[in-house]
């Protein structure tokens, strides 16, 4: 296998320049080998900085590094995943995160989100973006094949459970997660689907079936029981948008961290804040709430206008 210079790749990506398709293939293959050795539950120690959904917001990722420190000086946990879709630079974003994972496997953790799947990326933009930027679906195939190997959860200091969506009625203890067969497309049902899709419901005690007809919501009793069985104190997840950047539920036992804010999905329409969570030794938690990366003003809106109908240019609609 031809050797490649990973640090040079990272530098190139930090300049927002795409890597060659053949190089991506090598990097994804190598990263897969790293991910394959990881458990479904990766244990890490604080201090660690937890980042929510990125959704292809390249500039926000760079801003996060500016605020939180660059890897490997800061340990990162991209807890909430959803690295791709919706944004304008999903390819650059996931390329950079993949290189960082490969370069610093113990310092950068990537958890799988529901967008790290073939089905969802076809509907929400990543597939289209790969086609547009590379002229073929190869890059999309490399990445989505790699997504099959991403871990499902991370535990910080044996006390904070981090997952993309939430809890599953099929899972009571962490050990039950460890034995799941995760090396495949996210199944439409079962515990893996629940971990990446489910949402908390502050008004409920138990699990409930979503009015959509599939998927669960989980209530306070479920959260408390899970924490008690596993002797943990907190659940961290992402998956949902929150105006203030993060929210806490269930007497502070569960937090939702939301990161993307400059996406077409958010900033130009919602005006919400983003946050990263710094988990320190001894259980300290600090939500670092920040504003948009300034580069979005240069590259964001013009591209956004081309992508959606939300531009303010008068239109002779009928």
């Amino acid at each position, binding site marked *: 296998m031809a050797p490649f210079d990973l640090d040079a790749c990272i530098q190139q990506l930090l300049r927002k320049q795409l890597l060659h398709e053949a190089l991506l293939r090598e990097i994804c293959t190598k990263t897969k080998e790293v991910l394959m050795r990881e458990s479904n539950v990766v244990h890490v120690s604080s201090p660690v900085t937890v980042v929510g959904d990125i959704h292809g917001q390249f500039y926000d990722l760079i801003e996060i590094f500016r605020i939180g420190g660059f890897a490997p000086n800061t340990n990162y946990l991209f807890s909430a995943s959803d690295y791709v879709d919706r944004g304008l630079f999903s390819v650059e974003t996931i390329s950079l995160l993949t290189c960082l994972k490969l370069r610093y496997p113990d310092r950068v953790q990537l958890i799988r989100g529901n967008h790290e799947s073939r089905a969802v990326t076809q509907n929400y933009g990543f597939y289209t973006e790969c086609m547009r930027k590379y002229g073929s679906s190869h890059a999309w195939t490399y990445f989505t094949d790699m997504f099959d190997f991403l871990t499902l959860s991370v535990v910080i200091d044996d006390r904070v459970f981090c997952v993309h969506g939430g809890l599953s009625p099929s899972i009571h203890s962490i050990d039950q997660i460890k034995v799941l067969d995760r090396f495949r497309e996210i199944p439409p049902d079962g515990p893996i689907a629940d971990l990446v899709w489910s949402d908390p419901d502050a008004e409920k005690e138990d699990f409930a079936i979503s009015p959509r007809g599939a998927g*669960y919501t989980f209530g306070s009793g479920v959260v408390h029981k899970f924490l008690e069985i596993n002797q943990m104190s907190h659940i961290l997840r992402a998956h949902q948008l929150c105006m203030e950047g993060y929210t806490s539920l269930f007497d502070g036992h569960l937090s939702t961290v939301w990161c993307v804010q400059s996406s077409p999905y958010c900033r130009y*329409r919602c005006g919400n804040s983003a946050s990263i969570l710094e988990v320190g030794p001894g259980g300290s938690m600090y939500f670092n709430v920040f504003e948009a990366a300034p580069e979005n003003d240069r590259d964001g809106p013009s591209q956004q206008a081309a992508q959606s109908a939300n531009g303010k240019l008068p239109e002779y*609609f009928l």
Partner: protein
Amino acid sequence: MPLAAVALPKHELLESPTTRAIKMHDSGWTLTVSTNSISNAQDSDELQRALGFPLPEMTFGSNYLTLEHRPSKWKYQFYTPDALRDVKNGELGPGDGGVKVGHADAWLQSRTNPSSSLPMPKTVPTKPYDWTYTTTYAGHSTVWTPPDDGSSAADSRPPTPVVEEPPRPWTWAPADPDNPAHGIPLEELKRPDPILFYAEVPLFEDELHDNGSSHLLVRIRVMPTCFFILSRFTLRVDGVLFRTHDTRVYHSFASSPPLVVRETSGWEAPYDRVKAALSRRDDLSPLTDPTFIAKVLTEMPHQVSQVEGANTGWRGLGTKVEIAVLG
């Protein structure tokens, strides 16, 4: 016709950080839009309590478009909380057009099959509501308040109603299909007249937990001879269906007595029928574009997209034209 040949009616534009308005001096209209960020946690909680179901992920709770006609004291509004009030809360019945996500049957079966390794856990019933946020909201009339010389345009919320003399009675009446004034003149609207005022007001948007998209956007443009509004609800449920509900409001400044035309239309089709209209089969991105979806749905035969739809029995299908005579 060169643009300069169009006589511009006297008007005034008012602007604040979140609110913009146009005042038409001769006809007595004031058209105001307010566009704000999504509701913060406190406002969301209040609205959610009032409605009784979880709000769309992006609820622009303070956004509105208001039409005010001073001579007749007619006031009409498109306002987010009212649009959401039209969403079915409770068990969905005939006509509500309820749907489930594409994989719902398979999902439920995997949980309820006696041989399943994934037995149903103890669950509590979920409060039923229309999770697709389908609304046929066509705006609503509201209490006339005397304008306070434009300063209301700087307010980020609709002004609180003040009781003055009661407005003249008016109602939406069925349009006369033989009367050309009772329709929306597409030829006039296609003319590239100057646009004096233009706005897009998003009311809500939700990605249905990554199962599709539900979206309500109001647009307005004011030309020298008329104003025109399109409020468009667009629903995509992946693998299941597409649904569009449009409300168009048209007024010609030349109409006497002043006449407002309102056309409401609903279309629906199974997901795959709309998908078949894609020009490139591997590029699904047009399926996220409300204009593309509406074009495909409206170009289908009436029987297909306005009668059969996606066989949900949704009462919003079809087209209705109504008029309001002001004064």
